[in-house]
């Protein structure tokens, strides 16, 4: 029995003995929850996965002694039996709910093997797109019907494989991917408070952004578009985490939150360099309008979804950047933008520090201090490297770093103490 299970039992005893109050017991129960997955369920699920893979490989061997009709009949009846048997054990009889669940998962794997079998019979290349999409269509209702994490992950994996394998141009299929992700995968992950699938869906969402940047600019993948994708992904991640910041179940929330802040920092840093900005504007004039619309729609959607208004503190500055960017006049925008970007870059790091302090989160606060220090070093190199003699450049740089680090460390310790 795990530590958490033991603790739950002890907590019950402590309440009975009057050692702690019910309220304290509840807090302890929430802090150390007992995970529902048992060894039986894990073994049954692993068994199902192995069996499913075995069946797929068995048919992959193109067994000659079976006729086409018989092969199809065997696959159809095997997944039907797995589903019905699983349902019987889990719900009707209710004696082996975990084995029943594993059989339902096996059914979904067998259904997938059926798709590949038929593709094989007719010499169709199923891996490119369609096979995965048909698998997803068949499995997502099962995920909803049984609130099954395994089937939800299978649906996510097949949907993402469909998108990657299809290499779709900017057409309906390309746009369908984020819609299905947001419309079918995320809602169930959120409803189930499914940490794993939630995180996996967030990562799958990022896969959409890189080719989107490429398609919109109608050029080959470039570093600049990678940076824009990074900025957008970080923004989306930021909003998503803001929206669910009170939820305790989200997996690696601090890590994801830090990633979103660092992602925005890296993107804004790139745009504060003259060469990067010039090259970017030459290659992609007004490329970012669709992004802007997407970002605004996202904010509206988030606000409507939760029916709560976001405060200024909730708005990451990256969004403001997107709002301002397209409205500079063509002739003046290069130099104006460079100044604006640099001011903005520093405001962002200062606000991030304030944010960490306001949230009383030392991790965010320390991270933001590091970002600020990196920003100072970057800009020092950017502005003064060409202007000063080398010796003066390095000596003054060294002095600046030394004094700066003493000052920052002093301030950081003081503020961390205030937080505590």
């Amino acid at each position, binding site marked *: 029995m795990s530590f958490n299970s033991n603790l739950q039992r002890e907590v019950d005893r402590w309440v009975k003995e009057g050692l702690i109050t019910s309220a304290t017991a509840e807090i302890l129960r929430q802090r150390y929850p007992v995970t529902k997955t048992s060894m039986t369920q894990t073994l049954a699920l692993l068994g199902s996965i192995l069996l499913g893979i075995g069946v797929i490989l068995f048919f992959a061997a193109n067994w000659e002694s079976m006729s086409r009709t018989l092969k199809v009949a065997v696959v*159809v009846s095997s*997944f039907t039996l797995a*589903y019905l048997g699983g349902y019987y054990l889990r719900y*009707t009889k209710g004696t082996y709910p975990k084995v029943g669940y594993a059989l339902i998962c096996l059914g979904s794997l067998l*259904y997938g093997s059926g798709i590949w079998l038929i593709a094989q019979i007719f*010499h169709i*290349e199923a891996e490119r797109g369609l096979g995965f999409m048909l698998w997803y269509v068949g499995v997502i*209702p099962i995920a909803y019907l049984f609130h099954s994490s395994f089937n939800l992950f299978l649906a996510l994996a097949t949907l993402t494989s469909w998108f990657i394998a299809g290499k779709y*141009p900017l057409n309906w299929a390309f746009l369908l991917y984020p819609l299905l992700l947001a419309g079918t995968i995320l809602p169930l992950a959120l409803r189930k408070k499914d940490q794993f699938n939630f995180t996996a869906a967030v990562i799958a969402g990022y896969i959409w952004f890189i080719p989107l940047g490429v398609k919109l600019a109608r050029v080959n993948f470039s570093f600049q578009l990678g940076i824009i994708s990074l900025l957008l992904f970080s923004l989306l991640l930021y909003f998503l985490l803001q929206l669910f910041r009170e939820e305790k179940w989200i997996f690696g929330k601090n890590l994801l939150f830090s990633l979103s802040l660092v992602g925005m920092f890296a993107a804004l840093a790139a745009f504060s360099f003259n060469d990067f900005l010039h090259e970017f504007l030459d290659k992609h004039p007004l490329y970012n309008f669709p992004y802007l619309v997407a970002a605004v729609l996202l904010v509206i959607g988030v606000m409507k979804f939760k029916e709560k208004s976001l405060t200024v503190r909730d708005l990451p500055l990256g969004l403001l950047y997107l709002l301002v960017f397209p409205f500079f006049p063509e002739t003046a925008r290069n130099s104006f933008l460079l100044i604006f970007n640099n001011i903005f870059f520093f405001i962002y790091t200062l606000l991030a520090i304030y944010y960490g302090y306001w949230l009383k989160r030392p991790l965010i606060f320390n991270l933001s201090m590091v970002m600020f220090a990196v920003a100072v070093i970057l800009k020092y190199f950017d502005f003064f490297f060409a202007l000063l003699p080398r010796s003066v450049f390095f000596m003054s740089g060294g002095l600046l770093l030394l004094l700066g680090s003493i000052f920052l460390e002093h301030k950081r310790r003081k503020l961390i103490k205030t937080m505590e």
Partner: protein
Amino acid sequence: MLKTLAGNKKYLLILVILLQIGILTAMVVNSYQIIARGDKVTLKVEPLDPRSLFQGDYVILSYPFNNLNLNKVEHDLDLDKINYQQDIYLALEPKGEAWEPVLATQNPARVKDKTYLTGKVLYLRPEPQPILHLKFNIENFFVPEGKGKEIEKQIQEGVVYAQVSVYKGKARVMGLVSK
């Protein structure tokens, strides 16, 4: 209450099973329709031999028109507007032992009354001669496990043709023959 829920779940599960069977049936019917109603054509192939993770041994069939030389076939394609995965219609006519492309077009109306294949553009190499790289989803031929090498050897010894059924642009490989 619980019983009603359980009852509904059962019917919903049966519906989902029917949906899954329906999807598989649609795949089968679609392919059978192409085989049953399609024109039977013979195409020259150049085979290779890799392996598909899910589908066992198969031979990759490369057709001469996978790399279509647009200087050697009639076409109405605007080469500046060729996009990745765009549909191209390839009309076929019998020439000697095999069928060969006689027209490449973006307009399906031009091939409506002919035997034609629908291909997807992979890419265009404009220089030194305009070569259009196309895919038709008839490039795979699945063989029993372990027989890929044997079949490859056989077909490399002679001139190999694929027997293909073509119906409204879609095609299915029915078999390989050595002549």
